[in-house]
């Protein structure tokens, strides 16, 4: 499959994520949109990494070069998982205090 498909898909995912973060007020949905953006990046990383690896393989059958991108994706997933746990904990605490998950309620530090 040509690389363009991957790029267009991940761009679409990323833009959906951004628009979601910008427009929605529900903290959970914002959170999901962030995940969406992370995964868009992950997808792109894997796609480019695979493409790169394939070109190197053409010259040298035994090479391991060009798989670092795929490796990186695992790191991002791990960090995202940790982030999700912290983020959800914050949202739970927020709900306990305000009985709402509307982020526009969170400007109390202003003034």
């Amino acid at each position, binding site marked *: 499959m040509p690389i363009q498909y991957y790029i267009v898909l991940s761009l679409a995912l990323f833009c959906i994520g*951004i628009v979601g*973060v*910008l*427009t929605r*007020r529900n903290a959970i949905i914002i959170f999901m949109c962030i995940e969406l953006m992370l995964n868009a990046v992950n997808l792109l990383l894997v796609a480019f990494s695979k493409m790169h690896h394939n070109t190197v393989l053409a010259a040298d059958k035994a090479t391991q070069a060009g798989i670092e991108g795929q490796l990186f994706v695992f790191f991002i997933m791990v960090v995202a998982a940790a982030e999700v746990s912290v983020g959800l904990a914050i949202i739970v605490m927020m709900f306990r205090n305000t009985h709402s998950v509307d982020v*526009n309620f969170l*400007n109390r530090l*202003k003034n």
Partner: protein
Amino acid sequence: MNQLVYLVPLFPLLGFLINGLGRKSLSKSMIGTIGSGAILASFVVSLMLFFQVKNGAVATVNYFNFINVQNLTIPFAFQVDQLSSLFLLIITGVGFLIHLYSTAYMHEEEPQHFGRYFAYLNLFVFSMLLLVMGANYVIMFIGWEGVGLCSYLLIGFWFKNDNYNYAAKKAFIMNRIGDLGFLLAIFWIIAKLGTVNYADVFTNDSIQKLSSTDITAITILLFVGAMGKSAQIPLYTWLPDAMAGPTPVSALIHAATMVTAGIYMIARSNLLYSASEVAQNLVAIIGLATALFSATIALKQNDIKKVLAYSTVSQLGYMFLGLGVGAYTGAVFHVMTHAFFKALLFLGAGSVIHAMHHEQDIRKMGGLKKHLPITHITFLLGCIAISGIPPFSGFFSKDEILAAAFAHNPIYWGLGVAGAAMTAFYMFRLYATTFLGTFRGTQDQEHHLHESPSAMTIPLIVLAVLSVIGGFVGVPEVLGGHHALHEFLSPVLVTEQHHEIAHQTEYMLMGISVAIAAIAIIFAINKFSKKPDLQDAQGLGKTLENKWYIDELYDAVIVNPLNNLAGFFKNVVEKSGIDGIVNGVGRLVSYSSRQIRLIQSGQVGGYILFMVMAIVVIVLIWVNDGFIYKLFTK
């Protein structure tokens, strides 16, 4: 000799420091002793130097390098030669007498003001000594500025009176105009010759290096400096106003010494002036015009000091006439005799003012002869001396200038004699109105009339003696003398133009000028001793009384436009221009920050939106092969 030179200016400097710093703690008699003693010590050293110079010992003493940049080296050096040693004697000698006189004249002042007065006076003598002793133009310029400063401080000595402060400012500003000319001349000399030392500038090699344009420009610029300091047309109006200062100050600074600085400077630069016909003619014409013009003003002045002030301007004009026609010795000779008799006249006037309790209007005096016998006699001698009656000193010096003027151009002589006649007339008008006739003041004033104390009369007597005999150092050959002064000065005034007039002609010239002066004197005494002119003058007399309205003219042409311009800058340019810009910047910053503040809304979504927009912009800059980036860097 070299060890003594620095002592001459050192004593007045010490006197200035002690009196200036200790003016609040020292007693009046201490201040007077220190002030006068410093000048006396300096006079003694000057005498010793003078006799050494007379025996042919001329010295230039280098102390340190005052300015040292690349090829230009300006040493701090003193030059003691015939010309400067003569001036040293005049400055310290007459200066000492005037200091002595001041101890009595200023006695009513509070101690601290008394101390301030003597400190200024000593500082003045110090600066004046620096001026004449400097071995280059820059050191002369330091002294030149110093005397200008002291003149300003002393004119405005009674600073509670605004008119006096105004007079002081006027003197200072007019002097600054001249100083600018002097400064430009110095720069010009440095640019062309790379040195300002007299010893290097006044050589034939240096003259050869300068084009005739250079020489003319330098000499005229120097003369502009002299115009300011020595009160010549058009920069003379400060000197009559300078009479606001205490009378001994007028005697010392505005008659005997400071105002002759311009003559000293030109006499010093005689080699340059002799090389430029244009400059010489200019000096002669300006001098002659000033001599006549201010003599006419003096005819109708009623303030005893104003008459003397215009007389000073007029006599300075004669000196410049002498310089312009090449009679350098004559000019220096006249500086010397003028220092004697004009200081005498001013001090005599001071004695009168002292006796009259600060009344200066001669219309309210009269008949002071019997109340102030010593002042009267000495003043009379001074009047005869300035009128040019032989064998008093003024005759010899004025005659020498007039003879040289005749040799140069008989018209100069004719106008000079007319001026001399006016001099005799107004001096004896002053004398007759003040001392002869009957007293016209109040009874109270008459009751208090008294002869001045001896500290004031002794200087008068000494100066009167000098005024009478001072001329004998320069008896011309035609009268059987051998002109000792001329011989003495000949090494420094090397370029003197000798005028050859037949003896018969010279006798005739002398006879005419003396006869005219004598007629003017007799006429003035007859006219004013019985009934002095007390009414306000009409017609031409009114114009003369108002000094030809020159002050009004200057006010209208220069002072008022400048004031208006300054007012315009202050009220319009400063208020709405400069202030507008400054306040505008402040307002702009506060307005724009108020607008930008709104962006910081506290809404997280807003921040993220900006972040995204910024990223989009950055991406736009970089993508497409850096298209926008290239656009900006091209």
